[in-house]
């Protein structure tokens, strides 16, 4: 024995301690991985020993390795062993390891409950402290529930050291176990006035964090905090309090008014930048919330802006950055006060730090006005030229476009200038944003009619110099603008100065090196151009010229016919044939220009991007219904070869006279127009026409632009936006002079005594008249478009659970559970109904406790029920009435097999419910020779904790069934909603009678307290069966099974919200695996969706994420993976019991697949 001890201690001498390990790793730089795996082996040996010191040493080393990225989850149990060591030295290491490596998925974590409780109540404050610190890192909902009461006690510990830790950790507990907030809050509030400043600041911290998430519940604390704010000198605390006020003021404007003064005082007096920054931010928030009410705070805004200017001017980059950040907040509501600091912000654009430049760019966006847009953009353009990195340059480019195009080009007074800016931007090398520029060019050219002529001239110049843009190195980016250029030149070819020249440019052989989709646009627009040239030539009587153009087309088009791109090839060959045909006609001296240009007649109007979505579905139109029954597979296969022949046949007799063709075309057009006019499903284009033909009336009402010719439309030479800036200045100067003259005159008139309104001498935005009277064609929307629906708010906010009214008096039932002697096993909370012998023995005890809790809950519920019931009753009555009438109408229905029969009455019997999928969710409840009961249980969408049970009763006898009554035995957890005045034991009448062979449906509402477990309720249906021979009283017993799935409501969830939910980490996790599954994944998902009320969030191959919500707001997330013959389901849910029960149910469903 002694020898063994000695041997042990000698061994220990050879053990590596942490320092040795670190040194070792540093000495084995080449084969680090190998060395560490060797160390891990040693550690595993050490952990097997009984000596706690050795174990602690091993765990300490593991903690280090964990930081280096090695997995140590296998040692979780050993960590717990070390945590429970009696010596502080080891305990400390154990808790450290746990806090670094434990998370909610660590399954042994539940074993720690008792150890932690023991440590919390340890006489040594350092034991307690270390336990609290550790717990703050790995607290789970279970731990929070079990330990909440212990921690709450510690909040009143004699030592401030413990008090402050306990107060701080309460915040983590609240997050995990929101029920603890109300019982703990009074004590937390008390701590705001704790004699120890550390505890006080901890309490401020916690309440501030809570209030930031759900401010409205903390408004009543405002006076207390106000006092703290004016008395405290601790900057850390002040910052928190001020932040808290920032959250409260939007809810209580009066508070804001009161705050302004102390905050401005602080701004003036403090030397701490962090506090100053916080004050400024809060003042901004306050002013934003006040701005609607009273605009009389210009002094405060001015102060903030001044202080921010000082920050921005500071040499410290951090302050500069934050100054700009805060400035952008002011900008939103008080743009004028920021705009005067434009110089400073433009200066920041030259900063070395990219993040500062980006912030400044953000600010610029809001600072532009009609007056300064050109100047700002000019400045940005010089930056574009200077910028070194492509990312920053691209950012600049997008910002320029953003700034100019914001609010429907509101600030652009001269679109020629804008087009030239866009053209200048195309000279950027290697930008990714070619498509963005192209989109702008198209948008402007289409929507600003007055600019088309100029745009076309610029675009033709671009096309002419296409070789510059499309050189092979930069193919990907900028050549996109050629797409726009080609389209604009084609579509608005009537404005072209030298169409022939442009045509040639577009038919250059070099064009074939462009990407396919651009070539396709080229080909298409070449024809438009060609059409307009033909027309010109024919009108001028130059037949030869026209023929020459045709010849050019015939010569050049074949290069596109050879294109590898299908689209290009198809269009080109089609057009080549057309042109050849025209050539023939021209040879016969037939005038063709009219007809060719008729191909492209008509006006294109811009359509709003959301227009299609906004078209309301006409009443009675079912978009999912088949118009024609789909053809069977075999038929469609037969069809295919025939279609090939068909096509070939058609190709031959292609030489029809084109006149007939055109006539036919026009006729068809007319017919289609008629048809569209009469077709209610066609999106009609009023008020402005979607597409009308040149000669049809209606184009007139599109605002035609008056061009103010004081500005020359074309600036000689290549467009230089700078020239416009100069011109613009001159123009404005002229305008101003004129205006001044006018004003003077007016002044003279008004000279005597009359009040002048607002003729301030400064030039305001409104004074600047645009260079061109430009009407921007608004984007089309369908008539009676639905009002825009805002994006749904994120339902997955993890802090939502803490939105709890704290002023309500505390009910008994809300007291925190006090657990005295519990072993780790039971800490798992409500168990599944698994018949394990050991567990059974414990059960009665547990049940008793639950029983008591339930009883209390029940009483509370009753009170609530009383208040609710009148409303309830009405609602139900209405429903019943409806059912009765429905029942009468449908009383001659033929019953059939259970699944199908059940499906039909649903549609009739439950008109208010949402549509059910074709498969039936009704399951058999009970049956005898008289009656068959099937039922469906669904969570109620309106009320929390309620489910609606729809019971279909089918009379299968030859008697008439009447006097039907349903009596259900309530459990503690589930209660049937009964008409007012009836007792628990009374039956609830079924609101209809059933003649032989008829079925009908009745709905009942149940209130469920806890939904984490499945429920079974016993019930009896009693009725009188009456036939010719007489009447008998009959009974049918049934058991209502409320599965956990029936508490779920199919709720769609977007993948980003889903990801956020998973990231939030508030969910506990569990998983199942089912083998031997043959069903296809698609069907499997459908089954889960249908039977368990989930919706698919995302599906990738044989893996899908699904989401659902319980009627009490638990989130349930699933990851379903299909292996070869198996399916695994990983679930995450805000309640672990609910999750495990759900998974069990799912397992049962899947096992049947």
């Amino acid at each position, binding site marked *: 024995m002694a020898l063994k001890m000695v041997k042990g201690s000698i061994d220990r001498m050879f053990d590596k301690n942490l320092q040795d390990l670190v040194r070792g790793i540093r000495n084995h730089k080449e084969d680090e991985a190998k060395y560490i795996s060797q160390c891990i082996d040693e550690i595993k040996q050490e952990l097997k020993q009984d000596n706690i010191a050795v174990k602690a040493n091993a765990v300490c080393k593991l903690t280090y390795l964990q*930081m280096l990225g090695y997995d140590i989850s296998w040692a979780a149990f050993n960590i717990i062993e070390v945590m429970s060591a009696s010596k*502080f030295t080891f305990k400390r290491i154990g808790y450290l390891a746990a806090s670094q490596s434990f998370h909610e998925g660590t399954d042994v974590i539940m074993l720690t409950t008792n150890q932690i409780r023991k440590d919390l109540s340890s006489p040594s404050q350092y034991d307690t402290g270390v336990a609290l610190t550790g717990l*703050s890192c790995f607290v789970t909902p279970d731990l929070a529930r079990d330990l909440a009461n212990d921690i709450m006690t510690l909040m009143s510990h004699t030592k401030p050291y413990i008090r402050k830790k306990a107060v*701080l950790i309460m915040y983590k507990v609240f997050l995990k176990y929101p029920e603890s907030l109300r019982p703990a809050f009074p004590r937390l509030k008390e701590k705001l006035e704790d004699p120890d400043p550390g505890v006080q600041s901890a309490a401020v911290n916690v309440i501030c*964090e809570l209030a930031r998430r759900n401010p409205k519940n903390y408004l009543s604390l405002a006076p207390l905090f106000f006092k703290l704010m004016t008395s405290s000198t601790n900057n*850390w605390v002040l910052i928190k309090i001020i932040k808290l006020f920032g959250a409260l003021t939007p809810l209580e404007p009066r508070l804001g008014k009161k705050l302004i003064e102390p905050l401005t005082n602080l701004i003036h007096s403090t030397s701490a*930048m962090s506090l100053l920054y916080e004050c400024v931010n809060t003042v901004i928030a306050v002013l934003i919330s006040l701005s609607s009410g009273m605009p009389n705070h210009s002094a405060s805004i001015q102060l903030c802006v001044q202080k921010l200017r000082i920050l921005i001017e500071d040499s410290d980059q951090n302050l500069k950055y*934050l100054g700009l950040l805060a400035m952008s907040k002011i900008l939103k509501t008080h743009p004028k006060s920021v705009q005067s600091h434009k110089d400073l912000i433009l200066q920041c654009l030259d900063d070395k730090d990219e993040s500062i430049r980006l912030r400044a760019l953000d600010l610029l966006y809001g600072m532009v006005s009609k007056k300064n847009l050109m100047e700002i953009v000019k400045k940005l353009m010089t930056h574009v030229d200077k910028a070194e990195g492509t990312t920053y340059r691209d950012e600049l480019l997008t910002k320029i476009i953003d700034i100019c195009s914001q609010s429907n080009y509101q600030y652009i007074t001269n679109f020629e200038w804008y087009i030239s800016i866009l053209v200048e931007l195309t000279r950027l090398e290697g930008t990714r944003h070619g498509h963005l520029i192209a989109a702008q060019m198209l948008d402007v050219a289409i929507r600003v009619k007055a600019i088309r002529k100029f745009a076309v001239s610029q675009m033709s110049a671009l096309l002419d110099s296409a070789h510059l843009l499309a050189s092979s190195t930069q193919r990907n980016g900028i050549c996109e603008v050629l797409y726009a250029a080609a389209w604009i030149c084609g579509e608005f070819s009537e404005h072209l100065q030298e169409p022939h020249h442009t045509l040639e440019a577009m038919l250059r052989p070099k064009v074939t090196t462009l990407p396919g989709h651009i070539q396709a646009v080229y080909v298409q627009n070449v024809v438009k151009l060609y059409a307009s040239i033909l027309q010109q030539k024919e009108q001028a009587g130059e037949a030869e010229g026209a023929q020459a153009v045709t010849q050019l087309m015939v010569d050049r088009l074949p290069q596109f016919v050879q294109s590898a791109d299908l689209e290009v090839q198809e269009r080109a060959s089609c057009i080549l044939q057309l042109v050849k045909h025209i050539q023939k006609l021209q040879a016969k001296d037939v005038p063709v220009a009219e007809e060719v240009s008729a191909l492209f007649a008509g006006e294109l109007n811009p359509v709003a991007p959301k227009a299609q979505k906004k078209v309301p579905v006409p009443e009675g139109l079912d978009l999912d219904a088949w118009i024609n029954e789909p053809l069977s597979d075999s038929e469609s296969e037969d069809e295919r070869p025939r279609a090939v022949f068909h096509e070939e046949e058609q190709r031959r007799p292609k030489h029809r006279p084109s006149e007939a063709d055109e006539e036919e075309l026009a006729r068809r057009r007319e017919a289609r127009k008629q048809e569209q006019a009469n077709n209610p499903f066609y999106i009609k284009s009023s008020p402005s026409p979607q597409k009308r033909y040149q000669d049809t009336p209606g184009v007139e009402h599109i605002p035609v632009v008056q061009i103010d010719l004081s500005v020359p439309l074309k600036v000689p030479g290549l467009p230089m936006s700078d020239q416009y800036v100069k011109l613009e200045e001159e123009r404005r100067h002229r305008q101003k002079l004129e205006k001044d003259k006018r004003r003077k005159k007016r002044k003279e008139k008004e000279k005597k005594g009359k009040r002048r309104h607002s003729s301030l001498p400064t030039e305001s935005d409104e004074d600047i008249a645009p260079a061109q009277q430009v009407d921007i064609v608004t984007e089309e929307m369908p008539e009676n478009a639905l009002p825009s629906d805002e994006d749904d708010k994120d339902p997955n906010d993890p802090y939502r659970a803490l939105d709890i009214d704290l002023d309500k008096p505390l009910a008994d039932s809300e007291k925190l559970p006090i657990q005295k002697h519990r072993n780790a096993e039971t800490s798992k909370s409500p168990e599944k109904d698994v018949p394990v012998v050991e567990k059974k023995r414990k059960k009665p005890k547990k049940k008793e406790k639950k029983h008591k809790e339930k009883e209390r809950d029940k009483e509370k519920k009753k009170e609530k029920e009383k208040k609710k019931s009148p409303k309830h009753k009405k609602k139900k009555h209405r429903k019943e009435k409806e059912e009765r009438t429905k029942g009468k109408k449908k009383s001659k229905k033929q019953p059939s097999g259970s699944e199908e029969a059940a499906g039909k009455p649903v549609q009739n019997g439950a008109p208010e419910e949402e549509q059910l999928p074709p498969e039936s969710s009704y399951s058999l409840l009970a049956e005898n020779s008289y009656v068959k009961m099937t039922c469906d249980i669904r969570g109620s969408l309106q009320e929390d904790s309620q489910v609606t049970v729809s019971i279909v009763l089918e009379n299968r006898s030859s008697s008439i069934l009447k006097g039907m009554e349903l009596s259900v035995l309530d459990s503690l957890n589930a209660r049937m909603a009964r008409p007012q005045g009836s007792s628990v034991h009374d039956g609830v009448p079924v609101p209809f009678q059933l003649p032989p062979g008829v079925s009908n449906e009745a709905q009942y509402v149940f209130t469920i307290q806890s939904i984490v477990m499945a429920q079974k309720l016993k019930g009896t249906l009693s009725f009188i069966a009456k036939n010719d021979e007489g009447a008998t009283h009959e009974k049918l017993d049934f058991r209502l099974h409320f599965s956990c799935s029936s508490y779920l409501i199919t709720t769609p969830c977007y993948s980003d919200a889903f990801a956020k939910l998973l990231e939030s980490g508030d969910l506990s996790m569990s998983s199942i695996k089912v083998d031997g599954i043959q069903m296809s994944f698609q069907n499997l998902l459908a089954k889960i969706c249908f039977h368990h009320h989930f919706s698919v969030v995302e599906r990738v191959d044989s893996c899908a994420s699904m989401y659902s919500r319980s009627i009490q707001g638990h989130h349930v997330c699933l990851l379903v993976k299909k292996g070869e013959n198996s399916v695994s389901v990983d679930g995450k849910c805000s309640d672990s019991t609910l999750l495990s029960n759900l998974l069990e149910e799912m397992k049962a469903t899947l096992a049947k697949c």
Partner: protein
Amino acid sequence: MQFMLLFSRQGKLRLQKWYVPLSDKEKKKITRELVQTVLARKPKMCSFLEWRDLKIVYKRYASLYFCCAIEDQDNELITLEIIHRYVELLDKYFGSVCELDIIFNFEKAYFILDEFLLGGEVQETSKKNVLKAIEQADLLQESPKKTLSPIF
């Protein structure tokens, strides 16, 4: 505060403290991403960056980067202050701290951090109190028997 990372200029992690529960995989991913981003920044740049929906505040002391992730509404400057305060604490405790001190006594560095911050919130703003608590706990560690004696 959501988490705090300490890493060297070579990108080696020296300390990590997570105040939000995340899986190891996620932690590793975040660490890798942040170390890369922060190391790529030029010395003249400001100490803040926006990352996912969080704000990252970092500061370099000698060869070590201290990097904190805070939420949108949190105050960047006070976070810098927290970092600085922690460095001061380490400095006081180790006596002009260097990277090696933290490597070889990493558990001590954690203990100090735990006395200073709890659950991502500042627990004790007084340097003196933090160090006092650490020293007393260390005392307890070195002579555990002594502390047991008062019971008898």
